[in-house]
């Protein structure tokens, strides 16, 4: 092909994209906020795919250490893997809130234009950050590196300039949410959500400064990581879950909101001081043993409550709902959150056992199931709600065309993540025994554990299940692009009063 032919092809492609985007923006089935939500969901899915890809690369390096050596080293792959995860989850949350904001408040979003601008700014910034991670990777030991390349602090590696951008975007989002509720009506969900977003944005500041003292560094670093993931994010998905139960199953608002308050009390009551379970070994005083151990042992309780609550709701409504894939993922969320965050977290949370399991594959095992179970699942449920509405609020119950696809994707993703979790748990047990208990955490002990056939076997199992997860992810993407297309039947009507009595 000649250069001109390429040029024409590219122009055609761009024109096609433009046209499709214009058609999407003219979609009469979606409100302004819902269109913005779909923007967020789209980037979230792209980042989810990136997370899977870089997870596979990092996993492969455990088995073949020379794979991509000095091209894309483990530290780069692992950083992109975990950062893509954090960011796609945040995109999913922002999208979910934009999705129900107008419905919940009863008015159009106040300052929607700012929200749209913030989306493009954030997405542009995320793209630049990822390109710098991949192409530049590391810098010299100066402040310039921390400002422009990488802060080198797990999970919040984003360079400082991006941190400031993220705060600005979060403030815009907060303005959209608070001003919209203020103009429309305040519900219980609205109140919890708004206060939770204040905490979410505020806590991020705790990770935005440099100190020489690594104990102090880690102390505040956990304010972002733990208090986000085990407190504000949990409450945020509590709000999202509460709204979706009303919409999907027709649960009464009074019941949902009472449960939401109970969850907030239990979640913050255990999660805020549960922070102490990260303060056992970083130089902090001994009283954190008692406080951290006690409150983190309470942390699974709200998650049990959530399971009881959702199963009761689903049963009381005889599983009658308006969107089967979304309900399936809501159920996956209830169990995944309880198992991954609750059970898997509790297994090694007490100092008595954590002394041996801290910083081993136990953490990786817990992390995989907890993030997926608590957050990926509920975001995916919302992707299905969005797909349904975007196609004209069509039928998404039984006898759906190509219904095998969403089911297969759900099975592969859930089995895949569960398989990785169990494989990593086995690796974690082995590592705790050989490296920690027997060899006392010397480097020789570390490698004795890493080289052990039991460990290597577990890593191979992790890879197999990782591939299964990736196939499930691909299938999910395909299904979301196709599901409901050409469906003529309207969605099932869920009447709250009819089903409760």
């Amino acid at each position, binding site marked *: 092909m000649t250069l001109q032919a390429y040029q024409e092809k590219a122009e055609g492609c761009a024109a096609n994209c433009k046209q499709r985007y214009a058609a999407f923006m003219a979609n009469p089935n979606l409100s302004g906020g819902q269109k913005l939500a779909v923007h967020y969901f789209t980037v979230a899915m792209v980042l989810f795919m990136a997370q899977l890809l870089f997870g596979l690369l990092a996993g492969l390096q455990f088995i073949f250490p020379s794979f991509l050596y000095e091209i894309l080293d483990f*530290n780069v792959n692992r950083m992109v893997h975990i950062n893509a995860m954090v960011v796609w989850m945040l995109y999913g949350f922002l999208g979910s809130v934009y999705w129900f904001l107008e419905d919940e408040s009863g008015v159009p979003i106040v300052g929607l234009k700012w929200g749209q601008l913030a989306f493009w700014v954030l997405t542009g910034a995320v793209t630049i950050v990822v390109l710098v991670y991949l192409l530049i990777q590391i810098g010299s030991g100066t402040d310039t590196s921390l400002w422009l390349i990488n802060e080198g602090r797990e999970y919040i590696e984003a360079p400082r300039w991006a941190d400031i951008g993220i705060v600005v975007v979060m403030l815009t989002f907060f303005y959209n949410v608070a001003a919209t509720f203020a103009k429309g009506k305040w519900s219980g969900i609205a109140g919890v959500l708004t206060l939770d977003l204040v905490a979410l944005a505020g806590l991020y500041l705790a990770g935005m400064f440099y100190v020489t003292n690594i104990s102090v560094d880690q102390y505040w670093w956990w304010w972002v990581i733990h208090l986000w993931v085990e407190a504000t994010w949990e409450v945020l998905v509590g709000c999202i879950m509460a709204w979706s139960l009303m919409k999907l199953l027709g649960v009464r608002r009074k019941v949902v909101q009472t449960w939401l308050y109970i969850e907030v009390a239990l979640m913050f009551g255990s999660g805020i001081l549960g922070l102490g379970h990260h303060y056992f070994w970083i130089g902090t005083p001994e009283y954190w043993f008692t406080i951290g151990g006690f409150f983190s042992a309470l942390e699974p309780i709200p998650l049990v409550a959530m399971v009881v609550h959702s199963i009761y709701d689903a049963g009381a409504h005889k599983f009658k709902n308006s969107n089967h894939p979304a309900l399936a993922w809501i159920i996956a969320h209830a169990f995944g959150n309880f198992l991954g965050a609750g059970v898997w977290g509790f297994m090694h949370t007490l100092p008595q056992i954590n002394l041996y399991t801290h910083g081993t594959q136990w953490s990786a095992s817990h992390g995989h199931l907890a993030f997926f179970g608590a957050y990926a699942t509920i975001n995916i449920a919302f992707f299905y709600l969005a797909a349904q509405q975007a196609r004209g609020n069509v039928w998404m119950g039984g006898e759906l065309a190509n219904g095998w696809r969403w089911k297969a994707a759900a099975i592969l993703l859930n089995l895949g993540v569960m398989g990785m979790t169990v494989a990593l748990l086995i690796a974690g047990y082995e590592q705790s025994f050989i490296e920690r208990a027997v060899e006392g955490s010397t480097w020789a002990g570390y490698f004795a554990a890493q080289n052990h056939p039991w460990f290597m076997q577990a890593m191979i199992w992790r890879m197999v299940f990782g591939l299964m997860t990736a196939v499930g992810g691909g299938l999910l993407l395909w299904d979301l692009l196709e599901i409901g297309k050409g469906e003529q039947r309207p969605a099932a009507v869920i009447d709250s009063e009819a089903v409760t009595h």
Partner: protein
Amino acid sequence: MTEQSPPRWASETFWKKTAIWVTGGSFVLLVILSFDSMKQISAGGPRVPAYSVINKDVSYRFDKAKQRYQPTIGDDAPLFGKTLSEAEAEKLVDHGKKTVQAKNCMNCHTLLGNGAYYAPDLTKAWLDQGWGAKESREQMMVNFLLDPEKNARTYGSNRKMPNLDITPPEAEAIVAFLKWMSSIDTNGFPHNFIALGEEDK
């Protein structure tokens, strides 16, 4: 079925108030504890030694009364043969920490047990028996950091640290940072770790 109002303990307002009080109470307690923790973990405090500790011999021993391992500070043992003032030591350790962050060490290694699990923990790296002898340790660490591939210590795992373009001053600063970090009281983590030079005691 007639609608009955729920008992007080099951009402929305009761749980709303409970949620607010529990959240507020926990947060206030956390803030108070954080003030105390900050006081205790500032450098030069009871748990995190001053940066000039890099002029001393640092080790790690079992404390019978506490039933756990504790860092011990011994006689003079200046790093690279230079005794540094407090300000100089802080500057060096600071450069080391910045380099550790800029080179993204934490996405392979763990520090204080946090980070990734592809490479060993660095919490007590300064004290690891893998360096063979105290006399050659400093130079071996610098050589390793400058050319990790040629000086690879993979213990049969084939996992090699990549060349991270570390300069000689950065390498010395990292060693200083690691030595200082090994002196932090981590409440006995890692357990049962026998430090270099403590094998026969």
